[in-house]
């Protein structure tokens, strides 16, 4: 990217442009580009072509680089047997809901902690941050027991998307990120808005949020990734086949399905996110690298 070539990094530009430095730079760049392509793209190639191979071809030694007799039927079988359309729809539905719930509730909370600063705000923040130290596995049993019989209201959330959405709101890391970002917005803007008679909600909506697009993007990415990557929790709280997520669905089917069909299913499951990622990669990258963390 040309725009950041102006900043000085570990090694100076001048050094990289002169004779030996220049040679090393280009040699290293070539090695890294080829190496990274093999390491990160290679397995994906193996996955796409492997799923086209027949059972015998997969077991052959040494493995073949191209499928000799491509079997697109594996992909058709995967799509039909696993009901992938349903699994993908579920996963995107949960991810979208997670984004909405986290954006609304976590942003409001971070705004309150950063700008409105009510009594005991710091205590609440400290209690939230303390949960960062608690691995999800420690809570999985009591959380599960809570979700199948919510205290006071006695509702069972099994197979309900709220069982995924609401626990994700309790995300101290996102609140911390948002609060840090809001902290950097000058106080004068707040008092100016107050003088103009804007309510806190109005200030949040028309002043704070428009300034916070990068961090809101980052939180959305984290929310989607969390749903996408989580396995055990959706496996536990979405027990019926109709409500499963992709990852859980593939796992549930892997037992009695030929492995090339399982891999074909994995390829299909990966396609939508990879496409979404490639379309939004600019926003995702710049969001992750500029908006989020300053060390």
């Amino acid at each position: 990217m040309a725009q950041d070539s102006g900043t000085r990094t570990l090694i100076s530009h001048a050094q990289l442009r002169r004779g030996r430095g220049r040679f090393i730079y280009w040699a290293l760049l070539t090695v890294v580009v080829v190496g990274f392509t093999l390491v990160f793209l290679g397995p994906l190639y193996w996955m796409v072509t492997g799923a086209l191979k027949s059972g015998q071809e997969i077991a052959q030694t040494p493995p073949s680089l191209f499928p000799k007799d491509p079997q697109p039927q594996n992909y058709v079988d995967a799509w039909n047997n696993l009901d992938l359309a349903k699994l993908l729809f579920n996963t995107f539905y949960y991810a979208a809901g997670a984004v909405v719930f986290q954006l609304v509730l976590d942003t409001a909370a971070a705004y309150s902690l950063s700008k409105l600063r009510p009594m005991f705000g710091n205590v609440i923040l400290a209690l939230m941050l303390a949960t960062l130290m608690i691995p999800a596995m420690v809570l999985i049993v009591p959380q599960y027991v809570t979700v199948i019989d919510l205290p006071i209201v006695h509702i069972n959330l099994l197979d309900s998307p709220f069982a995924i959405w609401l626990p994700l709101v309790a995300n101290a890391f996102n609140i911390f990120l948002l609060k840090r970002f809001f902290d950097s917005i000058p106080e004068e803007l707040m008092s100016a808005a107050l003088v103009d008679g804007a309510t806190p909600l109005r200030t949040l909506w028309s002043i704070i949020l428009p300034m916070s697009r990068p961090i809101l993007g980052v939180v959305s990415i984290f929310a989607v990734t969390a749903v996408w990557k989580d396995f055990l929790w959706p496996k536990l709280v979405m027990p019926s086949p109709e409500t499963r997520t992709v990852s859980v669905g593939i796992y549930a089917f892997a037992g009695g399905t030929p492995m090339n069909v399982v891999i074909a299913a994995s390829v299909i499951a990966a396609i939508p996110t990879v496409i979404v990622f490639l379309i939004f990669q600019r926003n995702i990258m710049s969001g992750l690298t500029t908006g989020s963390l300053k060390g």
Partner: protein
Amino acid sequence: MAITTVPGTTRKPGRPTPPHTGPQRTSLGRKVRDNLTGHAFLIGAVLCFVVFSWYPMIRGIVMSFQRTRRGETTWVGWDNYSRIISDPSFWPAWQNTLYFTVLALVLGYAVPFFVAILLNEFRHAKGYLRILVYLPVMLPPASALYLFKFYAYDPSEAGLFNAILKALHLPTSQWMQSAEMTMPAMVIASTWMNMGGAVLIYLASLQNIPGELYEAAELDGAGIWKRIRHVTIPQTRLILALLAMIQIVATMQLFIEPLILANGAGAEDSATSVAYLIYQHGFFQNDLNGAAALGVIMLVVLAGFSAAYLRLSAKQD
């Protein structure tokens, strides 16, 4: 109270505030109202924390001292703890989890940092390399792990890794079938599919290092390694520390890797993790109380880690 409350100031949050409130309006009523507004914004998130985080935390501790049989809950003291500790998989699970944590710190923690330093130096192909590193993060974890299980870690010579090793005339490995290779194999798979996020976060903090620092170091005659040691690492210390903690918490929960790559326990219990043992007790052996006890043990161990870590970082300052 000497301050008199101006009537009508305890409005509900969300109502417009009249402009130019005089100094007398910073009264008790105003304070109460401001606080109510603040808490109104907080309430949604706080309720989620109460129900799904803080309450389960306490409930987990309580459950670990109880036993529920046929709907009847009784206090059983340390019974759950002694039962879980005498599980033959208890010590192997801890050994494996700590081994994984250490390996993941060496590989999964150091590698992304150096990859980020390298990527930060390049002036070409930057976008392409970043996309490559982040691509595996986009795969569903089960997909990525089946890819490793079926193609890379196939113990015969039809497996990708063994084919490469054979082509290089190196000894092939049984991978997941051999107790020694199980953990390294899981760390490799786990690092491959997760490192993208860490690389991007490091890149972000590397870009915030002022260039003058490097220039000054260079003028003082510092070579590349010295510049990394005395400029890059101190400048990114906060992020390095934060990610180290996040990584330790994450690796302690090792679960899906053993479940998929090793069908749970693996060869000679070489893959059983603490998280897997919690899952086994809680959801297969109908022993939610034992699982809760193991969760509490995990929490105590982690608290020990944090305390040691805080001490270490306090000493450095």
